[in-house]
């Protein structure tokens, strides 16, 4: 008797669990039914959109540049979507896990937000994406490139996470091919800073470099807050690599560049950074050592971008009084533009002029984006949320003055 009762209880519990996961609890509001819930926007009320990027700290240029790109996209849409004004909430992700978690939690707590554009750092997106998706809010990331975020076997929490930026599986391989083919390096040392972006990127580059026949002489790690890089560089010097590749963020990278020349044994070794260093803040932090420093980056020259990219740069200069301060504003523009298009596709109006947006429907629509003529090139998403391709370039700083920063002039493109 007792066993039967237990079995019945288990059966009921299993039924409830299956029901919960199979979308039985779909919400119907007005004319829309959606398994993740429906956001109702009364007539004339704004549609709420969130955003989170690095808006403070040494990597502020990375986030500020993207926030500006997203704002220009909203301007181009007349700051309206589906007949409603846009209310935009930008939070600071601080380019780290804690910041991403805090920003995402704050955005997720606002039940009116239908979608979040950003973040810019994989460190922030890794905890932030699942928090938002748990609240039924899809993320359109704008410069998070870590492969794990859109991997086929990614956690359930990242199923609402897509990006209008390339995947480092492509970038790491392209970087390794540049070292091997163009620089004719046969040996490579790498340094990451423990962030998902840097660690996964160097691993991809190391693997591709080994496939090409090269040797990875040292694979080191530092903390983003480390200042004394001399011991780790001395250790690398004992392995005599042709190049040291460190796609890390401004503060630690600037210390490496500054201290590189002091290390005996690295005279014939080339330091090479990554795309996070495409910023005037790096020139400020690295000082004179930044001159002639080479780093890899997606190609931002007008001919490598979308047809309308020069228009974006013009608007950027007009609105903010300066040239783009980093290299991912076009991805943020595309992220916001795709988002607004997605909202317009799924928005349903009732007779009273209220608008209804199904959360799952919005996610599916965004993931189904195909052939959008974006500022950074064509935006076509696959089923995992990768929506942009990668065009490799190498850049070199020619002046240490932060005021001289202008993509194409300082730094200059040296390849291709």
């Amino acid at each position, binding site marked *: 008797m007792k066993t039967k009762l237990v079995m019945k209880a288990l059966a009921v519990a299993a039924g409830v669990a299956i029901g919960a996961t199979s979308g039985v609890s779909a919400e119907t509001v007005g004319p829309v039914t959606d398994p993740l819930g429906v956001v109702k926007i009364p007539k004339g009320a704004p549609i709420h959109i969130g955003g989170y990027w690095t808006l403070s700290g040494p990597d502020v240029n990375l986030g500020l540049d993207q926030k500006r790109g997203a704002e220009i996209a909203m301007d181009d849409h007349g700051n309206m979507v589906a007949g409603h004004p846009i209310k935009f909430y930008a939070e600071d992700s601080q380019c780290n896990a804690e910041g991403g978690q805090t920003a995402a939690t704050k955005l997720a707590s606002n039940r009116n937000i239908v979608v979040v554009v950003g973040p810019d750092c994989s460190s922030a997106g890794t905890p932030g994406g699942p928090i938002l998706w748990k609240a039924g809010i899809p993320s359109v990331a704008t410069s998070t490139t870590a492969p794990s975020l859109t991997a086929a076997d990614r956690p359930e929490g990242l199923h609402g996470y897509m990006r209008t930026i390339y995947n480092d599986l492509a970038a790491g391989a392209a970087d390794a091919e540049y070292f091997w083919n163009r620089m004719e390096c046969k040996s490579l040392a790498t340094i990451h800073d423990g962030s998902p972006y840097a660690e996964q990127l160097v691993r991809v580059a190391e693997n591709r470099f080994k496939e090409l026949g090269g040797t990875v002489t040292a*694979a080191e790690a*530092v903390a983003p807050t480390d200042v004394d890089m001399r011991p780790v560089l001395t250790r690398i010097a*004992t392995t005599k690599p042709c190049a040291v590749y460190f796609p890390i963020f401004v*503060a630690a990278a600037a210390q490496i560049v500054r201290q590189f020349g002091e290390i005996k044994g690295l005279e014939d070794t080339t330091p090479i950074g990554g795309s996070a260093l495409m910023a005037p803040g790096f020139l*400020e932090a690295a000082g*004179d050592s930044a001159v002639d420093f080479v780093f890899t980056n997606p190609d931002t020259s007008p001919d490598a971008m979308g047809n309308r990219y020069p228009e974006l740069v013009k608007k950027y200069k007009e609105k903010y009084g300066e040239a783009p301060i980093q290299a991912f504003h076009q991805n943020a523009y595309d992220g916001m533009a795709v988002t607004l298009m997605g909202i317009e596709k799924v928005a349903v109006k009732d007779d009273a002029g209220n608008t209804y947006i199904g959360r799952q429907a919005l996610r599916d629509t965004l993931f189904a984006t195909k052939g959008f003529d974006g500022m950074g090139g064509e935006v076509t998403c696959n089923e995992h949320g990768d929506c942009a391709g990668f065009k490799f370039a190498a850049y070199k700083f020619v002046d240490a003055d932060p005021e001289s920063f202008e993509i194409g002039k300082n730094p200059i493109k040296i390849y291709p």
Partner: protein
Amino acid sequence: MTAQAASAPAGTRLKALKRITFVDVVLWALRVIVVVVVVGGTIGTFVKGTYTTAQWVDFFMFGLTIGGVYALIALGYTMVYGILRLINFAHGDITMAGAFSAYFLASSLDRAGTLDAFPLLAMLAIMALAMGVCAGIALIVEHICYRPFRHVKSLAPLICAIGASFFLQHAFRGMYGSTIRSYPDPEWMKGRLDLFGFEIPVVQPIVILTALGAMLFLYLIVQKTRMGTAMRAVSEDRDAAALMGIDVNKVIIFTFILGGCMAGIGGVLYCFVYKQIYYFTGFFPGIKAFCAAVLGGIGNIPGAMVGGFFLGVVESVGPALFLDGIGITAPYQLRDLIAFTMLVMILIFRPQGILGERLASQRA
């Protein structure tokens, strides 16, 4: 020998064995593991022969350089603790405040060419400004955060210290932004020096000798002046010192000024070595310096100096010496782990720190 006499030592041994607790076993196991890693790793590293003698000298000098800075900052922690039995957690950020303020003077002097033309005078001016700012802020912090709680036994001053730390960070962030500023890099700091056949960057002996000079000066003040004697008396027993006619308030103020001055020098040296300053610059050196003070024996001035140098050298030499030999990849990401493991080990063997004395319960 009777059977009774023979069984007595056996009984004592049994009692001693029964007194061994699980914690004792864990601590001994920890000691054994650390000793095995240290000895095994060191032997392995030397057998592999990855590093040349010159590179070991480099590691050692890197460690002494950062260690000198830790030591200077640690002096502020240890002096305040010695006098007030209080951990001034804002001290790292006071260091940042001085170095940040001095950055503007250093940049101006660099742009004007004064830093290269008159290096000694320029450096003295930069350090004087940093010392002044650090001492001033240290006094304000003491007045606002610590003085109201001086006779209150609670955690309030500690919480206030943490609050002051965050306040300073965010005040500087608000005033000067969160971007990293580049400290000047004068030509005379870029050269190399031949030291017993080993080439080292000239900035390293400058920092080490300046730190040693400042510490010697401080030591003489504490040991050879009337105020120093008063400081030691207050440190020993504040109430008895007051009964003997010592102005305890004046001694505390003097202690904060001295600690601030050392922090000012340490902050400027740190920034001339690592060339960067931003609002968060003081946090990690502050934490490390606090550890150095504990390592050397908190409240003990020579202990803070020894602790600072020791921590710096272990951080710099440790990963290569202990971990390379046992095949650990990327050993430098474990730099802090090594430093703090050594800290824990030393405190297990000598809870009072390297040069610390066992404090009577009244003092401790």
